[in-house]
């Protein structure tokens, strides 16, 4: 028996593949035809083949607090998500615009603070920002870029329009899974690659390497680049190790590095000390340098900030870049784009209420049961309130928290997230998705064609985080002429 698409109903949500029961969208027609030709057994066999490949390739992510067994196999759905190249070109332009503006914003905050003086960005928001680092004031990194690797999360609403949901400018993760998902799909659905012209992803590590090389202190032909990880117990260790391997650079931990009294960074190798030019650091600001930040950090390198300030080492992302990775700053992104680039945002924000503002706060408190409330500086989907499904107790608790610390909360309307067909046991059902593309910004800019699609595997759920029951899909940017 094959799939019956006439039973597939997204029930009022925008489904990216099936316009209405039994009617696939134009780009999806080949895919639907192909899936239809397969029996349920064949589809199940392919899902199993993908899962076996994941175990064999050792694609894992780590969940905290599971005792001995901390590595879990990566949850992957075999049905790819399709996005038209023309639509994507516009989205990619929007991402470039956004990252460019955010970098100008960060540089301004650590420089003249024109945006505050001009009254566009409230001074009190800056004063209470958790991720503003006074230690970075007056510094100008190469190319004026602070956030070199950005992962902005995009969602579609019930009209199919893309919105930016949040910007991740500290240490965004997920790119290794994006790459591995493509490898898996090529194994499982190799025949579809002849029907579609899909933009390739595999050269991301080269782009990453080139971007990192472009922030080296000198124009060395062969800069020494390293990936710095907190170690095996970090949830993204697989990715740290993967990227180091793909770029052919060393994967270091803080204890491997020293800053000498020439204020340069060295790594300890069996050949002796070796100068390091660029560090792709995957640890948070506060652990980077115990001389400056968290004194008890054993993950960092004493003197690292000194070396960076003197321009002797490139750090990606730059310390302090996280100031723009704040959901309250997010609410100002359209104004920030207008202020620095004098352009309207290409990709809109999700309408956002800033609880610091009295009028907006009152609106939020009155409509708590209809809104999604997020703390300003959490990631991984933690600490959120989803109003429509929350208990009375939770609503009261959040009202209390918002009143106690309004600066720390924003609220957004409940989005009707788009869906895509997803394997659910033996059936194919609609499930909600988001999309995390990755933007590289050094001397040049690069946007991944597509990104990591995360899918909420539980029926009706919109929580896509892998630590909370989310899965993932390969994402295809498809050129129409060959579709």
């Amino acid at each position, binding site marked *: 028996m094959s799939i019956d698409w006439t039973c597939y109903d997204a029930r009022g949500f925008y489904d990216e593949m099936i316009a209405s029961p039994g009617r696939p969208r134009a780009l999806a027609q080949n895919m639907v035809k192909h899936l239809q030709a397969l029996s349920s057994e064949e589809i199940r066999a392919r899902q199993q083949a993908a899962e076996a490949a994941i175990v064999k390739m*050792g694609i894992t992510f780590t969940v905290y607090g599971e005792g001995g067994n901390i590595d879990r196999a990566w949850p992957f759905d075999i049905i790819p998500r399709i996005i038209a190249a023309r639509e994507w070109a516009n989205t990619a332009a929007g991402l470039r615009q956004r990252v460019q503006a955010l970098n100008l914003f960060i540089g301004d905050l650590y420089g003249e603070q024109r945006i505050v003086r001009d009254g566009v960005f409230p001074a009190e928001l800056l004063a209470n920002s958790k991720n503003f680092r006074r230690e970075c004031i007056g510094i100008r990194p190469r190319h004026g870029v602070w956030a070199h690797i950005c992962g902005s999360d995009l969602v579609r609403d019930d009209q199919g329009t893309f919105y930016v949901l949040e910007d991740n400018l500290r240490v965004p993760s997920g790119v290794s899974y994006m790459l591995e998902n493509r490898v898996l799909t090529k194994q499982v659905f190799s025949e579809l690659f002849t029907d579609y012209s899909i933009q390739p992803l595999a050269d991301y590590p080269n782009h990453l390497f080139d971007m990192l090389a472009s922030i080296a202190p000198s124009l060395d032909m062969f800069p020494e680049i390293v990936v710095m990880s907190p*170690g*095996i117990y970090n949830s993204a260790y697989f990715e740290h*190790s993967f990227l*180091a*391997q793909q770029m052919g650079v*060393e*994967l*270091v*931990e803080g*204890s*491997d590095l*020293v800053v*000498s*009294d*020439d204020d340069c960074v*060295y*790594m*300890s*190798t*069996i*050949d*002796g*000390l070796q100068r390091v030019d660029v560090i792709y650091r995957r640890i948070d600001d506060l652990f980077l340098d115990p001389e400056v930040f968290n004194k008890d950090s054993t993950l960092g390198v004493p003197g690292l900030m000194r070396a960076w300030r003197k321009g002797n080492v490139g750090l990606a992302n730059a310390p302090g870049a996280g100031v723009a990775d704040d959901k309250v700053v997010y609410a100002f992104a359209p104004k920030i784009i207008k202020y620095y680039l004098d352009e309207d945002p290409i990709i809109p924000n999700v309408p956002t209420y800033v609880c610091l503002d009295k009028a907006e706060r009152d609106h939020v408190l009155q409509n708590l049961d209809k809104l999604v409330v997020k703390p300003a500086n959490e990631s991984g989907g933690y600490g959120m309130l989803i109003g429509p499904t929350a208990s009375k107790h939770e609503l009261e608790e959040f009202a209390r928290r918002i009143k106690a610390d309004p600066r720390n909360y924003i609220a957004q309307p409940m989005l009707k997230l788009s869906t895509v067909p997803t394997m659910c046991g033996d059936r194919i059902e609609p499930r909600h998705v988001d999309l995390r593309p990755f933007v590289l910004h050094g001397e040049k800019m690069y946007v991944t064609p597509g990104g990591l699609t995360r899918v909420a595997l539980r029926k009706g759920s919109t929580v896509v985080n892998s630590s909370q029951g989310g899965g993932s899909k390969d994402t295809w940017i498809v050129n129409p002429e060959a579709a």
Partner: protein
Amino acid sequence: MLSRVAERIYWIARYIERAENSARLVNAYTQQMLDLPSGVEPGWRQLVDIIGDAPAFDEHYRSYDEHNTVSFLVADDFSPSSILTSVSRARENMRTTRELLPTEAWHHCNELYLQVRNHAHEGIPRRGRHAFLKDVIFRCQQLTGLLAGTMSHDTAYDLVRLGRNLERADMTTRIIDSAIFILMPRQRDPGQYDNLLWINVLKSSSGDQMYRQHVRSRIDGAAVVKFLLQDRYFPRSVARAVAEVEFSIHHLPRNEAPLLRILELRERVLMAAVDDMSLEAMHAFIDKLQLAFNLVHNEIFRTWFQIHHPAPRTRTAGMAHA
């Protein structure tokens, strides 16, 4: 290669070799105890003394009986020298150096760990001990073979060979010591069992056949000790393991200091006049060798693994560039 990574690879090899040799040691000692008539056994405390971990043992046990001592060497997770501890440390080190080692080696090491974790308790009673220990020895040999046969013999492999052979040299001296410990209290009354005991020592190192092929004399204590200490061809002899250590050190950069140490050690091993030594002298000599192995390790650590803190910049005005 990063110092930290180099150190982990070195320790993977040491822990695998340690697990294998602990299995050999417990097996040899058990066989000896079985062969001795009741009343003359030296007791099980010696087994812990040979490994040199009496303080850790005393923290957890009051009596040096067979169950406790064997459990301490095989199955206890609190014991610094149990087989379980060795394989789980080997596995932890391998988890963080997976990029550099063959994937099959990781799978195999993982299996070895699971096997020991799930079945170590079966190796404590005499009934299951032999089978369990044999299995551990076999699996360690497989892993060693897998690394030798599938890894490029580059720097990473030099470190594997270095760790494996230094550990092996050390453990072989401990296995010799196990016989000396049994013989010492009754050397005034050499028994009919002594030859049997040396045969067991050879067997525990898988050396009985090679001994017969190469030594071609009847088995006696001095000849066996000479074989296990000084034979140049038997892979588990101290001299051979030391030669492998020297060979590995030769390939590594900045090797002057460790090379000097290992050459000193080689002289000491090869020049020892084993024939003329009393049991006490032999035991004292083995003690000294074990200290020397430690010195080699310390030199290896200082040279390649220690995180180098840069020497302070000299501020004296040197010769300017003319």
